[in-house]
């Protein structure tokens, strides 16, 4: 068990807003509408709202776990389940975060390969990204949080671009509201709730907040902002594409950017993909940071050593995923695991910890 980080390594509580928001917004914003529309059709936006509310509850539980445990999840696991089972759970959790890292990296490379450079080799781009992640990583946790702020600043102007497609919006595509059965809307919400994942990283970075309890409020605000971003994204896509078309479009947001037409820039999507690097870079950095932090807690491996191994692993793993169908299957599998982690594992730990603390008090 490590000592808690020293004061100069911590960040202010309000930065939780940026961390949560930028972790939740990632590569999947470009493609999420399709899954939703397959389930809930034009009522997909209701699914987003429901999933948003569910996210607030799970985020609250996540913070309760860490606030009560007063440390990161590795230590809480050890307290609750002992050295071996607790250690195993931590190992599983960081394996999950590592898979997320590989998935995000591969998905972004896929976007570049499909949209910009079909000749780009996967390992080459993975290598470039790995170097970039490494450079930010060596800057430390505070630098990565700075990157989150930067990513937030870049998301806002990209969102404004949603106004362009609205010129050819059809309001009738949204009507009638609640055409789909509650079951369909809920299954859309299930798909969506996974897309809101990313805040699990709090389980690892909680000790790095000055006054962690105050960070909770900001984190909730961040999650609310994320929900509104996704809501705007899904509404614009629904208004712009006909339903049959949206189900077929793999990256609706990128296709929307094709409409954006500045006098000086005919095809915005190329600029958009490049800017998007900064939106998903914090995701990559913080996920791998959480993994190395977990490994340090478990095996006392230096973070700067383990990251080299992990990045190599990520480069090799991502070059084994060769085509788009594999990527989509891979991400569908991860989505199932994410759903389990968010809606079974976190509530379970929360309840278990609650009971465990009650029992201990009574002793």
């Amino acid at each position, binding site marked *: 068990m490590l000592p808690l980080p020293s004061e100069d390594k911590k960040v202010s509580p309000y930065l939780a807003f940026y961390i949560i928001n930028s972790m939740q917004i990632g590569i999947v914003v470009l493609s999420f509408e399709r899954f939703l529309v397959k389930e809930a059709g034009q009522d997909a936006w209701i699914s987003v709202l429901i999933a948003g509310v569910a996210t607030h509850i799970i985020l609250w539980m996540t913070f309760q776990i860490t606030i009560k445990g007063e440390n990161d999840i590795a230590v809480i696991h050890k307290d609750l389940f002992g050295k071996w089972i607790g250690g195993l759970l931590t190992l599983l959790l960081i394996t999950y975060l590592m898979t997320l890292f590989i998935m995000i990296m591969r998905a972004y490379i896929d976007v570049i390969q499909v949209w910009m450079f079909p*000749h780009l080799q996967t390992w080459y781009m993975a*290598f470039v990204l790995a170097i970039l992640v490494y450079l930010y990583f060596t800057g430390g946790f505070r630098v990565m949080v700075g990157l989150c702020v930067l990513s937030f600043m870049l998301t806002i102007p990209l969102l404004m671009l949603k106004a362009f497609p609205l010129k*050819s919006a*059809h309001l009738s595509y949204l*009507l*009638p509201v609640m055409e789909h059965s509650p079951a369909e809307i809920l299954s859309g919400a299930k798909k969506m709730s996974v897309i809101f994942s990313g805040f699990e990283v709090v389980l690892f970075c909680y000790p790095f907040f000055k006054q962690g309890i105050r960070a909770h409020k900001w984190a909730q605000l961040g999650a609310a902002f994320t929900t509104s971003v996704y809501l705007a994204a899904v509404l614009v896509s629904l208004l712009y594409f*006909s339903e049959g*078309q949206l189900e077929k479009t793999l990256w609706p947001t990128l296709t929307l950017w094709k409409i954006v037409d500045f006098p000086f820039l005919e095809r915005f*999507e190329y600029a958009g993909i490049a800017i998007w690097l900064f939106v998903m870079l914090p995701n990559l950095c913080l996920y791998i940071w959480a993994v190395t932090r977990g490994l340090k807690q478990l095996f006392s491996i230096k973070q700067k050593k383990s990251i080299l191994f992990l990045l190599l692993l990520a480069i090799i793993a991502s070059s084994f995923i060769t085509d788009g169908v594999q990527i989509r299957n891979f991400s569908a599998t991860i989505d199932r695991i994410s759903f389990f982690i968010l809606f079974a594992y976190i509530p379970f730990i929360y309840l278990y910890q609650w009971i465990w603390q009650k029992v201990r008090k009574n002793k």
Partner: protein
Amino acid sequence: MRTFLIWVTIAIILVLNYNIERYVLEDIQIITAIGYDYMEDDTMRGTVAAPFYPQGQDVKPINASFTASGHTIHSIRQQFQREAQRKLASGRLQSILVNKDLAERGVKKVVDSFGRTTFIGRDTKLAVVDGSTKKLLTSNYPNAQNLSRYLSDLLEESIVRMAPNTGLHSFLSQMEGFGQDPFLPLLKREHDHIHYVGLALFKDEKYVDSLSFREGYIFKMLYENFKYGIYEIKYKDTYISIENLRSKVKYNISGSSTRPVVTIHVSLEGKVQDAYGVPLHTQKRIRKVEVEWEKETLEKAEKLVRKLQDIGTDSLGIGEKVRSHFRHFNKSSWESLYPDVQVRIKIKTNIINTGIVE
């Protein structure tokens, strides 16, 4: 020293493995317009206009074109490359033309390819050509120096005042969406000019019929709000032309989901431009012209809707509007329902002024 060596190795790996295809402006030839003609069975003939910019200062582009035939868009594209001096690039493709014969047999194989590729924009203009697209794309036009510029300006700037705005996106979304059928401008090469003939109507992916220029204008009035163009009406024994200042359209759906009633409310605001021999100095006389205008437009609009229903193409997107009105609308029965749906048209006209003379 060791870290230095590591970074040098990394740099070497990155430099040596860089193999992304480059498009340098001086070394490529940009395709700006492309046309497809029907040949036989499943063969198409593609023609591209790719203006060639010779070296030197203040040079004017030369109209260059390539023609080849094949089964798919991209195999045809490779054929063009066999003759081209430079690498052909399609990033600034602005107009896609389809020959009427090909359109009659379905355009999905053309638009699917353009909807799938990332290399062209989404607001690329599509049009149907009566006659050969090869002829249209290889002719010289005395009124324009650069053919592809002429074509794209015609589609983007000129005819939007008379025809509804269309493009690759609207075509794809109408083709794949429920209760709407696509339509495109119909062009023809005539007297050394490219001529806008009217609207080509599609049933799903197949061309079925066309609307004349005048019908196309009424169609635009029923399809979207707009504010350009001229209405010409016959008034007593002379003609009056009224400039359209504002035209608004609104759809109301009533009835039941098995017997829907569609009411189209159109409100027109205009300004009298030509009124030779018609004194328009009293409110009453202007009112008379308004009534006549209303009557004529209504007649034309009803005829147009009747025509669309008879040929079974829902170009106005009535199906989509009906679907959005009724909860759990039965989509499968719409096809048979459409020709007999009751469509009422209500037109309100208003002449705002008559110019600077009475």
